């Protein structure tokens, strides 16, 4: 029952918000709803046995409306419900058009995202997967920046193409299930699919997630979409939706097509490591702050994808930890990008500089978040990336070397950003710049505390995901030595 509650509460609140006129009330109600959702989902962490919720939906097609969770989906739900109060908060004390519609769309997205993570059968997963896209499409189309029509369209079609391949894969698996067909994940994982089928089925299923995360070379929608998106849109995209791709890959690939995973493992790892280096190098060459952060996000996600496919204990632990840590850090980063843009009136790095002298508190918090992104020890970023690198190293030293480049290159471009934005001479244009307001502190301090807190004491997260990581690892052990031959 509690699962149904956290699923539906944002949706119903969103519907109600459409009827409210007052912008301030809308924002406040949305925030309260998001915080309540967070508190309720925190109780899930401490319940002893996982609860589920299942109701027959379409009997003829073997579809139940079944919700449930395990360690991995718990991390994802926590991430979503942790970030959305901040995403809602990012709009406070700012002028926005058509506020009720905007916040309704944001809450609809939250509902759909929770649905993706709670779905226990592939059909429901697919429905919610598509549903996350629709409100986001409208958020980008109506509140986005320049060229939003073209860019949103490209993003939409690109993502949907991947999703439709996923649909094909789901139906294919559906008809392989014995007896009365069903799309339950548990039924799928019991299928014995011949190795030759698994080889092509891998890409059919993976392409949707490869586009969503994104993995090189399916990333071309990312820079323009992130740069054009409104603040709250890009926070949803970078903070949560990329993790949705990771979750989908974990749910669909490992239990169902283990041989396919093993066959393509090295290819995907190489692609993602290429993505890490590629994104990092391009990030360094950017002059637009938002685009730079977008590429840095892609670099970190690519490292996480490599971790996912390396398939050992450290890397999976690191991956799930990094899901939380990257989400928090990237939301904080994009908020600061918005702050800097509001204060300095520009996003171009050449035109910034010396902001530290005008807004020292902003500089301090910015530094902490930047250090988190670089993965300095004692920040959450370090814990995740270190574990991932340890896992990569166990597989092959070269993977670790190239993966480690993300830390080095990350340090290069992030410190470069800090230097360009904050340090340097006082600029005449910025002489009227004010430091952060109370609202900004309210936003950033909790995030910074989480970054530092998780960096110092990451154990609770590890406890949460322990069981799932072990299960995931054990799924592939029987096949570990046997690569499929065509």
């Amino acid at each position, binding site marked *: 029952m509690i699962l149904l509650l956290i699923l539906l509460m944002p949706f119903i609140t969103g519907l109600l918000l459409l009827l409210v006129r007052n912008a301030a009330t809308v924002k406040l109600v949305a925030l309260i709803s998001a915080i309540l959702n967070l508190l309720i989902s925190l109780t899930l962490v401490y319940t002893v046995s996982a609860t589920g919720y299942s109701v027959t939906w379409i009997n003829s097609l073997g579809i139940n409306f079944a919700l449930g969770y395990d360690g991995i989906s718990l991390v994802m739900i926590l991430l979503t419900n942790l970030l959305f109060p901040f995403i809602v908060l990012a709009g406070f004390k700012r002028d926005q058009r058509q506020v009720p519609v905007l916040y309704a769309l944001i809450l609809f997205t939250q509902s759909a995202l929770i649905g993706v993570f709670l779905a226990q059968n592939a059909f429901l997963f*697919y429905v919610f997967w598509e*549903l996350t896209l629709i409100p986001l499409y409208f958020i980008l189309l109506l509140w986005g920046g320049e060229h939003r029509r073209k860019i949103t*369209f490209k993003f939409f079609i690109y993502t*949907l193409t991947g999703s*439709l*391949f996923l*649909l*094909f894969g789901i*139906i294919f698996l*559906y008809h392989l299930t014995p007896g009365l067909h069903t799309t339950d994940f548990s039924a799928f994982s019991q299928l014995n699919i011949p190795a030759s089928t698994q080889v092509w089925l891998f890409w059919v299923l993976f392409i949707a997630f490869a586009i969503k995360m994104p993995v090189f070379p399916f990333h071309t929608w990312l820079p323009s979409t992130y740069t054009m998106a409104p603040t709250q849109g890009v926070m949803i995209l970078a903070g949560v939706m990329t993790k949705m791709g990771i979750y989908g890959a974990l749910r669909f690939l490992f239990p169902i097509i283990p041989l396919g995973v093993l066959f393509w493992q090295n290819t995907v790892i190489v692609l993602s490591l290429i993505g890490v280096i590629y994104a990092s190098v391009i990030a360094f060459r950017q002059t637009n702050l938002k685009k730079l952060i977008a590429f840095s996000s892609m670099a970190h996600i690519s490292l996480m994808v490599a971790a996912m496919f390396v398939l050992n204990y450290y890397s999976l632990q690191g991956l799930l930890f990094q899901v939380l840590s990257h989400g928090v850090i990237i939301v904080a980063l994009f908020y600061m990008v918005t702050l800097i843009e509001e204060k300095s009136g520009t996003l171009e790095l050449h035109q910034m500089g010396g902001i530290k002298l005008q807004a020292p508190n902003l500089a301090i918090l910015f530094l902490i978040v930047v250090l988190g992104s670089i993965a300095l020890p004692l920040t959450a970023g370090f814990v995740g990336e270190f574990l991932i690198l340890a896992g990569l190293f166990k597989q092959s030293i070269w993977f670790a070397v190239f993966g480690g480049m993300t830390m080095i290159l990350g340090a290069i471009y992030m410190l470069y950003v800090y230097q360009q934005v904050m340090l340097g001479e006082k600029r005449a244009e910025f002489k009227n710049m004010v430091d952060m307001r109370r609202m900004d502190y309210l936003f950033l301090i909790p995030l910074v505390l989480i970054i530092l807190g998780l960096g110092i004491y990451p154990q609770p997260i590890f406890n949460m995901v322990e069981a799932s990581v072990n299960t995931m690892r054990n799924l592939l052990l029987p096949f570990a030595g046997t690569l499929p031959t065509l």
Partner: protein
Amino acid sequence: MSTIILTTILGILILYLGFIKNKAILAPVAIAGLLITLFFAVNGWGSGYVYFHKMVIFDNFSIAFNISMIIITIIIFIFGIDYYKMMEMHVAEQYALMLFALTGAFLMTSFSNLIMLFLGIEILSIPLYILAGGKKFSFKSNEASFKYFMLGSFATAFFLFGIALVYGASATFYLPEIKIYIAQFNGHLPPMLLLGLLFILIGVAFKVAVAPFHFWSPDVYEGAPTLVTAFMATVVKTAGFASFYRLLGMGLLPLPMPLEKALWVMTGLSLLIGNIVAMKQGSFKRLLAYSSIAHSGFIMLAMLSQYDSSASVILYYTFVYSLAMVPLFIIFILVKRASNGHDHLSAFQGLFKKKPWIAVFMTILLMSLAGIPPTSGFMAKYQVFILSISAGYLAISVFAILMAVVGIYYYFNVVREVFTERDHLKPLIISKLNAALIIVCGVAVVLMGIFVWNIPI
């Protein structure tokens, strides 16, 4: 049978009521008559009456499709109340002709004899030829009517020629007997029989506008008065596919190899041409015409992959597709009025600003046509894919999926226009009745997606 009699009488009644100067009573009488027809149709469920020495069979299949078509016609008539307020003359004739066309449609769903199918197609088509030319002073409308008449007559001629050849080979018009006759050849049919069957299929394929027999459809859809286009795109398609299904099931299955190949080629071409050409359309009615060709491709895919389980999928697909199409045409009419008759997609600009709720429901309807969850259009496509993938036709399913992506592209082109800002030249007036019905259809489309129904026929 009562449905056929009732609609015929209703049509004649409306014709005579046209003598009375008061236009306002026409729509209520028509709708009331259709509701009575609906009642009688539902009453006949499960009875399986046969008439005229078994030439006409009202089994559950035909009753289900009849009910679907009556409901769509009622919706069209309710929308027509506002539409025909603007029209000066011949309103009664328009209603009557649509009712007569509906009668033909009923015959098309319940035939078991080729002559009955021919009668049904003709009774459906001839009123439509006249209706397509409804705007007497519009060049496009005259062109549409003439084109439809010429091409439709050619198609009917092929159809009749096919029937003649089949009769020459098998000495019967009665479908079950033709089936037995075909079965004895074990797939190697004599040329006359094969050619005859092919011509019959071509005749029916023309009616449902599958490629390569679709060329009439964009011009006719564009030229005809929009309410008539709505009728053509929905009721005629439904009747056509019901008759196609029946033709295959009662007479032609198992399909001889050449015919099966021909049908698969038609499916693939419809999916390809319908979607690809729709991408380039600037006129909304042409876009919907090409997209309806694409939808025909999907329905054929369902029918050919697993014939036996596809009846309820076809019923569901055609019904939810019709439910989404009709309000779209109506919104287009209203938006066109506000932009001085401008036919292009850009006429939709500014809709969200002026009437946000209508814009939202229009988006929902377009999402249903595009096949995005949780709408019923998605569930319809999902069921089609389940049929085709389970039957092992993987390549064409992947192709259909790719074409569905193209579909999403052009449907969301329209959505984008809806949410673009622009001022209208004239005020955008949507009557309360129209708005209410659009919202009802939109809600129905979503509800049917969540509560998928499956009628065993």
